[in-house]
C-alpha cells in the first residue's frame, strides 16, 4: 500500500527541538509507568515532537490571513461566533413521519436551531416500506419516507421558511429533495425562501458509506442536475454536503478524510463546469461535512487545513473570482465510531471534547452524538444531554468569544501545514489513477481505508492505543441504558397508508408523470422537473427510484476486504 507507507514515513518536528521521535508507541499501564515518551503516533500515525517552537519565514498573510480573509485558514467570518453561533443541528429520525415530527418539535423547543433528518435504510436505498428489501429495516435508523404525504407529515406544524433543514440522503437525494420542495409548496412556502442541505454526495458512497444505487456516471448526472436546478429555483439551498464523516467512520485517518473529501469536492466542481454551469455561481452552494474524532489538535488542524486548501484550489487551480466560492463551509458531527458500549456515560465526555475541537476549528453547524448511540437509537433524554453539551460550550466556556483562538499556536500551525502537505501527496496518488472516478474503479480509496481501519483495530487489541473503559480502566458493571423502542404496529400502519395512496391517487396523471420521468432520464435534460412532477402526482419513492434504476442500472459493491 503506497498510502500506508506514506503515512508511516517518520516525521520530524520542523519547529522546536527535542523531536527525537522515539519510534513505536508504548501504552502506559495504569498506576505504573507515568513517564510518557515523545514520538507518540497520533491517529494518522504521524509522529509528533516533544514541543514546537517558532520557525523563521512564517508568512502570516500567505498561510493564515485574519479570520474572514483569504485563504480563510482562520475561519470564513471575521467575527466568527460573535456574529452568530454555529447552528445546533441534531440528526434525528425514527419510525414514522409523525413520530419523528414530535422529536423535531421537542428539539426545537429545547433550543435547537436547525433540523437534520435521518432516514431509514429503505429510504436511503430508494425502497418503499413495503418493498421486500425493506424487511426488518422500517424506521430503525431513521424515519421512513415513501411519499409526498409522508414528507408533509414529517414537517407538519413546522414552518419551512423559518427553519433550515439538513437531509442525509444520497442515492435518491433528488427524489427526497423534490418531496421537500413539494411539501413546502403545500405549506405555501416558495422554493426561493427555503434553506437547508441535501447530502447528495454520491462519491463518498462508493468510497465508504455504500448506500449507492446507480453507477457513478448517472449518479453524478443526478447530482449536477440538482446543482443546476438549485441555482435557478432554490438559491439558498446547499445542493451537496461533501462528506468526510463517513470516510472517517469507515476507518480512515484524519489525513485521508481531509484529502479524500476535498478530492471529491474538486470532482463535483469539475463535473459542474463540464455541464456548462458557472462555477462562481454554483460552487458557493457546495458545503462540507467533517468528522470530529478524538485527537483534539489533529481535528482542529484538519478543519483549518481544509479551508486553506479549498480556498487556494478554487482561486488558483479553478480560477474562481467569487470569494464565496473559496470559503469552505462545513457541518461537523462528533465521531460515532468513538462511542463505546462500555461505561457509556464516558461518551458524554468524549462528545464534549470532540465538539470543542469542532468549535475551535470553526464549524458552521454541529451535531453532538448521544451517549447511548453505540447501543441503539438515542432516547430523548440522551439527545437532550448532547444538545446541552453544545449549549455549555456556547454559553459557558467563553470559547466562541474570539475567532480562531488557537491561531499561531506553534503546534497547531505545524500540524495544519503537515496535514496540508500530506493531503497534497494523496491528491497526487488519486491523480495517478486518473482522478476520483478512476481511483474508485480501482478500489484505491476502499483499500486505503480498510488498511487503516485494520491497523488501528490491531493496535487497540494490543493495547498500543488505550480506549478508556474498553481495553483499560475497565469495570464490570451491568449496563443500565434505557433503549428507545418504536411503536411495533408502526410498520403495518405505514404500509396501509402506502397501499391506500396507491389505490386512491389519480392513476392517469401518475402514469403520465412516470413516463415523462423515464423520457427525461433516457435523454439528457435535467431530471429535477420530471422528478418533481412525479412526486406531486403521488408517485412513491420506490416507484420514482425504480424508473431510474431501470434506466441507469444498479451499482454493485467492489470486492475489497
Amino acid at each position: 500500500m503506497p498510502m500506508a507507507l506514506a503515512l508511516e514515513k517518520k516525521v520530524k518536528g520542523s519547529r522546536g527541538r527535542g523531536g527525537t521521535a522515539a519510534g513505536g508507541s508504548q501504552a502506559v499501564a495504569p498506576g505504573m509507568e507515568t513517564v510518557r515518551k515523545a514520538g507518540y503516533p497520533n491517529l494518522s500515525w504521524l509522529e509528533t515532537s516533544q514541543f514546537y517552537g517558532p520557525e523563521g519565514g512564517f508568512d502570516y498573510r500567505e498561510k493564515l490571513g485574519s479570520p474572514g480573509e483569504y485563504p480563510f485558514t482562520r475561519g470564513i467570518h471575521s467575527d466568527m461566533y460573535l456574529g452568530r453561533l454555529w447552528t445546533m443541528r441534531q440528526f434525528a429520525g425514527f419510525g414514522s413521519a409523525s413520530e419523528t415530527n414530535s422529536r423535531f418539535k421537542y428539539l426545537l423547543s429545547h433550543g435547537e436551531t436547525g433540523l437534520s433528518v435521518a432516514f431509514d435504510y429503505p429510504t436511503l436505498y430508494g425502497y418503499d416500506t413495503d418493498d421486500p428489501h425493506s424487511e426488518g429495516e422500517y424506521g430503525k435508523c431513521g424515519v421512513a419516507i415513501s411519499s409526498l404525504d409522508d414528507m408533509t407529515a414529517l414537517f407538519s406544524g413546522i414552518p419551512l421558511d423559518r427553519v433550515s433543514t439538513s437531509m442525509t440522503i444520497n442515492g435518491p437525494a433528488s427524489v427526497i429533495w423534490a418531496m421537500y420542495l413539494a411539501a413546502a409548496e403545500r405549506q405555501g412556502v416558495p422554493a426561493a425562501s427555503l434553506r437547508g442541505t441535501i447530502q447528495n454526495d454520491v462519491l463518498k458512497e462508493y468510497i465508504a458509506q455504500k448506500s449507492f444505487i446507480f453507477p457513478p456516471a448517472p449518479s453524478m448526472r443526478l447530482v449536477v442536475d440538482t446543482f443546476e436546478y438549485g441555482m435557478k429555483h432554490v438559491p439558498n439551498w446547499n445542493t451537496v454536503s461533501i462528506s468526510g464523516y463517513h470516510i472517517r467512520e469507515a476507518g480512515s485517518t484524519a489525513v485521508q478524510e481531509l484529502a479524500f473529501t476535498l478530492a471529491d469536492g474538486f470532482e463535483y466542481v469539475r463535473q459542474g463546469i463540464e455541464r456548462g454551469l458557472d462555477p462562481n455561481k454554483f460552487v458557493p452552494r457546495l458545503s462540507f461535512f467533517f468528522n470530529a474524532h478524538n485527537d483534539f489538535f489533529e481535528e482542529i488542524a484538519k478543519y483549518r487545513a481544509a479551508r486553506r486548501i479549498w480556498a487556494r484550489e478554487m482561486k488558483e487551480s479553478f480560477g474562481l473570482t467569487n470569494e464565496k466560492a473559496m470559503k469552505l463551509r462545513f457541518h461537523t458531527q462528533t465521531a460515532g465510531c468513538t462511542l463505546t458500549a462500555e461505561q457509556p456515560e464516558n461518551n458524554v465526555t468524549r462528545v464534549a471534547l470532540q465538539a470543542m475541537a469542532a468549535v475551535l476549528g470553526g464549524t458552521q453547524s454541529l451535531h453532538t452524538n448521544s451517549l447511548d448511540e453505540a447501543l441503539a437509537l438515542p432516547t430523548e433524554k440522551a439527545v437532550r444531554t448532547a444538545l446541552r453539551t453544545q449549549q455549555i460550550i456556547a454559553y459557558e466556556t467563553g470559547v466562541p468569544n474570539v475567532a480562531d483562538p488557537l491561531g499561531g499556536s506553534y503546534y497547531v500551525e505545524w500540524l495544519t501545514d503537515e496535514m496540508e502537505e500530506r493531503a497534497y501527496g494523496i491528491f497526487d496518488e488519486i491523480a495517478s489513477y486518473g482522478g476520483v472516478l478512476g481511483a474508485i474503479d480501482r478500489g484505491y480509496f476502499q483499500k486505503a481505508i480498510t488498511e487503516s481501519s485494520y491497523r488501528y483495530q490491531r493496535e487497540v487489541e494490543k493495547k498500543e492505543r488505550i480506549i478508556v473503559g474498553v481495553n483499560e480502566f475497565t469495570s464490570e458493571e451491568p449496563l443500565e441504558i434505557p433503549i428507545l423502542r418504536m411503536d411495533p404496529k408502526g410498520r403495518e400502519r405505514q404500509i396501509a397508508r402506502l397501499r391506500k395512496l396507491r389505490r386512491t391517487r389519480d392513476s392517469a396523471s401518475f402514469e403520465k408523470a412516470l413516463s415523462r420521468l423515464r423520457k427525461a432520464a433516457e435523454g439528457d435534460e435535467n431530471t429535477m422537473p420530471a422528478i418533481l412532477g412525479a412526486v406531486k402526482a403521488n408517485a412513491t419513492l420506490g416507484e420514482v427510484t425504480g424508473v431510474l434504476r431501470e434506466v441507469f442500472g444498479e451499482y454493485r459493491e467492489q470486492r475489497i476486504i
Partner: protein
Amino acid sequence: MNYTTLARSIIRGDRKAAARLISVVEDEEEGYGEAMDMIFSASGRAGVLGITGAPGVGKSTLVFELAKGFRKEGKSVGIVAVDPTSPLTGGAILGDRIRMSELSSDPGVFIRSMGSRGGTGGLSLQASATVRILDALGCEEIIVETVGAGQTQVDIMGLADTVVVVTMPGSGDEVQSIKAGLLEIADIYVVNKMDLPGSMSTAADLRAMIDLVEDWKGWKPPVLLASASGARGLEEVAGSIRRHREWFSDPEAHMERRASQARKEIYDIIASGILRAISSAVTDEEMGELVRLVAERKMSPYDAARKVAGSALPGADLYKAL
C-alpha cells in the same frame, strides 16, 4: 463416513451433499476415490468455461454476466471461484461471491469458493473434482475462475473446453505476463473496462502477440473489447464462446488437450494418493523428529524420505525411486 452415499445423493441432485463432498476432496480426506468413480460415471455432460486474468480486471463481474446469460437460456450453472491462500497463515478471504450475490439464492446456480491452499498438484486436482461433482449434480454450464498466470492457473484452465483470458487497458506488463503464461491456453481474449483509456492499444498489443504464432490449428483466438459492469460487449464474448465450443466439439480438435489433461490428472491422483498413504505410515511425532534432524542438517532429506517411505513400503528398492 461413507462417501459413496454422498455420491449417490449428489447424482440425485442433493446440493448439500455436493458441498460436503467438495470439502472432503479439498481437505484431502482419505477414501473418497470410490465416490469419485461414481461421480465420474455420472458426469461429462457439462460445458466447462475457464476465466482467468490478473486481480482487479473484472473477472468476477464477467463470470456473473455470463452466468446470467446461461440462466436466461434456462441452463443451470456451476461456478468454481479460486482465490489465493495466504502462504503465511494458510488462511484466505474468498470474496468472489460479492460480485455475484444476485445468484446466491437462485436454485439453478451453485457457487463454490476455493482457496488455493498450497498443496502440490493438489489444487488442479481439487478443482477438477469440484467441476465433476457439479457436473454430476446436474449443472449444465460450469465456469471456473482463477487469478493470475502461474503454472497452477494453466493446469486448472486445462479442465476447460474454452479458456477466456481477461485483461484491462493500461498495463503493458499484463500482456507480457500473458505471453509468458497463458498464450498457449487462451481461446478468447477479453479487454475488459473498455471505457478506460488505452483499451484499443492493449487490444492491438494482444493481436500483435497472437499474430506471431504461425499455426493456430484451426482456432485463432479473437480479442474482444467489453465492459462487464456496463453490460457492453458481452454478446460478442458469449458468441465467441459458442463458436469456440462448436469448433471444439470436433473430437479431433480437442483430443490433444483432453489427453494432456488426463495424463496430468492421473499423475496428480497417484502423487497425492501415494503421498497420503505413505505419510500416514509414520506418526506426527516421528515425522516431527525427522523434520528436526533435516533442519539441523543431521540427516539428508533424501534419507528422511526413504525412512518414511520404507515404513510404508517394506522391501521396496527405495534407492532407485528416491
